[in-house]
């Protein structure tokens, strides 16, 4: 009898998990999409608590610098938030000339960005001078 119940529960869980249509470009969040074995009403609080405990945060996957048609260097930053909670942070980009010196500009201020939990994020920064050939970026918590 116990075996039968266990089998039934397993089938139900598997059915929930298999019912999802996976389109990598579309994020279906909890409460919108179906629950799965990994993410359901029982496991979610545990996973979130663990994520907070280990201090999961954002990861920068790539930083692409390219010159736009107007001749300005553009920085495209792509990353993802490993945490289950929305991460808000600030970033500041300084532009460097061919000698590696910082170009003074009013645009080098701390700007805000937020990344939803377990989601990718991206932002773009444009150098205000054509002399910019490189950059350096710093981040800090958004209080």
């Amino acid at each position: 009898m116990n075996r039968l119940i266990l089998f039934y529960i397993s089938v139900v869980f598997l059915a929930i998990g298999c019912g999802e249509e996976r389109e990598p470009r579309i994020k279906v969040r909890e409460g919108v999409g179906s629950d799965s074995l990994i993410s359901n009403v029982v496991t979610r609080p545990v996973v979130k608590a663990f994520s907070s405990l280990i201090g999961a945060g954002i990861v920068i996957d790539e930083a692409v610098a390219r010159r736009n048609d107007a001749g300005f260097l553009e920085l495209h930053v792509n990353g993802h938030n490993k945490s289950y909670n929305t991460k808000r942070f600030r970033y500041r980009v300084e532009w460097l000339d061919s000698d590696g010196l910082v170009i003074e500009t009013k645009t080098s201020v701390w700007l805000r960005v937020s990344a939803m939990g377990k989601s990718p994020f991206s932002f773009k920064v444009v150098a205000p001078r054509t002399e910019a050939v490189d950059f350096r970026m710093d981040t800090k918590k958004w209080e």
Partner: protein
Amino acid sequence: MKAKTLLIIILFSNLFAGCGEKTTNIDIVHDEGKPVMALDYRDFDQTASALVQSLLGSGALKKEDGSRYVVATGRITNDTMQRIDTDQLMAKIEEEILNSGQAVMTSAVGSGTDKLVHETRELRDSEEFDQSTIAERGTLIAPELSISGKIFQRNIRYDKKRQQVEYYFQLKLSDAKTGLRFWQKEIIVGKRGSSKSVAW
């Protein structure tokens, strides 16, 4: 006894005098201060940065022949409850446009007019001035592009204790000859805080 009381009073006075909030200079670059409900310099810095990046990144200031556009600052309306000098925003944007090397700003017309440009021309008939040093007729350059915009505010009651204040910064760049708009951008700065805070 009297001396003791006097000593205690002096001690307390000194202690209280020391407890007052001391004045500190703000670290403008890495300010860790708490946000305020009204617009402060950080909001203007961040908004100006976002607007400049959008404008320059759009390529609207890049002239095909490689020469520079002449840009005039038009009217920037302050429709907030705060007394804002719109130059607080525009000075940063104008500075960055100039430094970009893609455009020059004009002081001949618009809200950035320099009175002296016109006053010196009124000296044409003055015998006190060497006439060869006074600008000739037809030397001013008309602007090709104009920047205009608006800053406005919406106050919303969020719940019993909190209010939400939304500030909208809108800027647009238009061709002075054709009236066509080449670029525009809106930045929203939203704040949520105590209803007791006054956002002006």
